[in-house]
């Protein structure tokens, strides 16, 4: 087994009692002494600080950077306004999802954040396919943290008033206690909050400043997972993969209007034909759905989904007890005929059929700050 990487906040995690586990090649805190459930609830009620430095931060420079990146994603990058962030997907030639990512127009360059587990693949993919004149720089000298929750703005603006002026998906360069940081008002918990890119050498000092704010607790990967699941957000490698198209993954909303078959810059990304065919003809056999358990037993990733006759109709791809909703929730894929709200399906758990109801996601109300 290869050596695990450590983020610039590794020592702080240990000092705070973080329980470290291997995740995507990094030693990351799965929880702190507060525990997953309380960390989850603290984030929903106050503010939580997450180390997401394991994710890949990439800078794309060059006059054609936006046009070139558009060739890899079914998303409008060319008209992404300066200071705005957008969710995107790398697709493969079969229309499958290679990764999901965030793209920001930072003015002079594009700032891209990709998943830790896909980082090497995504960088190679961009290097191989972004045309001449686009320079790719991996920002591995920067930490990335997320400050999330209804009191995140109150906590961060006390140190950096400028962040109050931002709304959901805004991004800008700010100075926090003398340090140049790149901040976006976004995250992956369903709550208002920020993601803050910090030079590695200053990351620990600034994070100590963040957690000194009375609203803020450190939150581990365990609660990050239950928070994103309650918010109906996909985890790549679990809810999405190379064999799953954006249509099957219920991510049609992520395909920009101008890139669709009838758009002004239609297609031109890998797998466009397959994806357009699925949109036009609905000729796909499975779809991602939300599920709420009718009983109290959590339904985990990998559980088989069956119909009332015991025939396999799909599989759970993420599942846990939702600390805020107070019931076991899950996401998974079912045959399209079952992907109808309120349909009853059964998860096979320890040899028993446990009834679940197909439900809309998010399971909680997203509380992004839109001004």
């Amino acid at each position: 087994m290869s050596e695990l990487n450590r983020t610039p906040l590794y020592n702080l995690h240990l000092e705070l009692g973080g329980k470290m586990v291997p995740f995507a090649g990094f030693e990351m805190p799965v929880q702190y002494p507060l525990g997953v459930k309380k960390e989850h609830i603290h984030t929903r009620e106050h503010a939580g600080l997450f180390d997401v430095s394991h994710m890949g931060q990439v800078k794309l420079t060059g006059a054609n950077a936006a046009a070139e990146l558009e060739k890899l994603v079914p998303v409008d990058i060319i008209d992404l306004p300066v200071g705005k962030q957008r969710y995107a997907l790398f697709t493969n030639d079969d229309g499958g999802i290679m990764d999901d990512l965030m793209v920001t127009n930072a003015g002079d360059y594009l700032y891209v954040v990709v998943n830790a587990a896909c980082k090497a693949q995504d960088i190679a993919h961009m290097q191989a396919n972004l045309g001449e004149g686009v320079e790719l720089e991996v920002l591995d000298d920067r930490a990335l943290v997320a400050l999330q929750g209804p009191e995140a703005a109150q906590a961060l603006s006390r140190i950096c008033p400028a962040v109050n002026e931002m709304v959901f998906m805004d991004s800008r360069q700010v100075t926090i206690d003398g340090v140049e940081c790149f901040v976006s008002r976004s995250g992956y918990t369903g709550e208002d909050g920020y993601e803050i890119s910090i030079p590695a050498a200053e990351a620990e000092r600034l994070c100590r400043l963040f957690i000194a704010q009375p609203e803020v607790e450190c939150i581990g990967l365990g609660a990050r997972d239950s928070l994103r699941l309650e918010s109906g957000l996909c985890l790549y490698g679990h809810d999405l993969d190379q064999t799953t198209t954006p249509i099957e993954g219920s991510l049609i909303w992520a395909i920009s209007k101008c890139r669709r078959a009838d758009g002004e810059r239609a297609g031109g990304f890998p797998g466009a034909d397959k994806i357009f065919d699925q949109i036009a003809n609905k000729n796909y056999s499975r779809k991602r759905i939300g599920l709420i358990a009718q009983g109290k037993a959590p339904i985990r990733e990998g559980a088989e989904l069956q119909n009332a006759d015991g025939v396999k109709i799909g599989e759970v791809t993420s599942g846990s007890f939702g600390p805020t909703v107070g019931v076991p929730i899950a996401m998974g894929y079912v045959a399209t005929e079952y992907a109808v709200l309120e349909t009853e399906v059964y998860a096979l758990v320890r040899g028993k059929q446990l009834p679940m109801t197909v439900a809309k996601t998010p399971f909680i109300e997203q509380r992004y700050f839109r001004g």
Partner: protein
Amino acid sequence: MSDIPSDLKYVASHEWIRDEGDGVVTIGITDHAQDLLGDVVFIELPEAGAEFATGDDLGVVESVKAASDVYAPLSGEIIAINGDLEDAPELVNSDPYGDGWFVQLRLSDTTELDDLLDADGYAELCEAES
């Protein structure tokens, strides 16, 4: 350091056993076990009357993080289950040796009690595992 009461017996799979006399024992999971599991959200227990041999799967404890099996530390018949755990599984975290008990077992072979770990033996085992 977790709480390991000296008046209880233990097995390596992190269940505790209280000898109630007359061949009856109360069983639960240890403070160390609940700490490793984290916040318990669901417990599946057998029904009264069910019979188990030592090492059989007795039930399942689910935390926010994961599912974990509970093993029968002794052989016998279930004579009582803790029904409070259905609506308040968090009792396993807050009071693992008290209100968070799992089941009572009527032993089929009381000599099996001699094979259990005492508090010191269990403490050593936890130490070795960490």
